[in-house]
């Protein structure tokens, strides 16, 4: 069968459109996660988990997010999972969190914390967490790593955490 140039173009365009849709969908995906689900999510013994708690309304959080995403990109083939758990209002999933994730095209998996109350989530994550954002949990079951930080991170600091704990 002879395929004309035009047909080829159309096929190519359709292919691109479909691919684009898929990418678009993946980017826009933000799942909700409860603390119980988060606990299960971070149990692979061979993976180092870096869980950053942030919110679209938190200026310092938004400015350090690219560092977390860069870490995930740098080590995307390594046993490192960067999870970004938003503490935004739960009603803001579609109006704030998903548009934010679409805009920033992040590789790190973004979640919205599903919680009965902030207090419950904060205490479950770490009893020393004051509740201020940003906050970051470094976790690995096999090596018994549970570090909790209430501070902002540069990329180099995050890289050091990965190198020290991997």
């Amino acid at each position, binding site marked *: 069968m002879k395929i004309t140039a035009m047909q080829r173009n159309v096929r190519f365009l359709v292919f691109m459109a479909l691919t684009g849709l898929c990418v678009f969908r993946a980017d826009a995906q933000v799942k909700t996660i409860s603390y119980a689900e988060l606990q299960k999510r971070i149990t692979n013994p061979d993976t180092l988990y870096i869980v950053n708690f942030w919110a679209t309304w938190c200026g310092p959080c938004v400015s350090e997010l690219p560092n977390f995403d860069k870490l995930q990109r740098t080590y995307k083939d390594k046993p490192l999972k960067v999870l970004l758990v938003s503490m935004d209002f*739960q*009603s803001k999933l579609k109006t704030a969190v998903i548009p934010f994730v679409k805009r920033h095209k992040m590789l790190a998996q973004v979640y919205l914390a599903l919680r009965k*109350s902030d207090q419950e989530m904060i205490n479950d994550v770490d009893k020393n967490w004051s*509740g201020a954002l*940003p906050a970051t949990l470094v976790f690995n079951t096999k090596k018994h790593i549970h570090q909790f930080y209430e501070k902002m991170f540069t990329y180099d600091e995050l890289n050091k955490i990965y190198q020290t704990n991997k």
Partner: protein
Amino acid sequence: MKKLLILMLTAVSAVAFKTADNGYKAGDVAADFKLKNVTGKMLSLADYSNAKGFIVVFTCNHCPVAQAYEKRIMALDARYASKGYPVIAISPNDPVAEPVDSYANMQKRAAERKYTFPYLIDETQNITRAFGAQATPTAYVLQKTDKGMVVQYVGAIDNDQEQANPARTKFVENAVDALMSGKKPAVTESKALGCRIVWKNS
């Protein structure tokens, strides 16, 4: 699984990075302070000779969580000031790093929103450090006693930022109600999710 996790958390607590948890806890006596109000006048707790206590709230202009709680803070003053527990709002942030929280902008917001309570600026951030607030908004319920201003509650105003849960626990109201009926608050502390306080040179 949960047990295993708890076990591991216990095992590794030695390496967990503990955050500074200085500041007032329930039962502590809070020191009085002298801070500049948006009216331009200096204000102290001692100026309120008839108060039975205070609802001290560290809050600010810029933080969306503080903004979400603004009406609730105003409602607390409307409800409790006449009963002897007025609201004292303190803005803790460094206005150089966060210009929205400048003294002029505080004056503007207090006037626009018609605050019925003082809105003080903690220019040195020493009072914020003494109280131990980490985020805005954070509330402290103080009770005037023979020992001084005893901290009876520290933490969030309620456990429902979005006001989506009709069964929410109104921590501050419950604490003040308990004190007014001669009891101790059932809940004396909670965590306050909010914007980290913007410290100078940080």
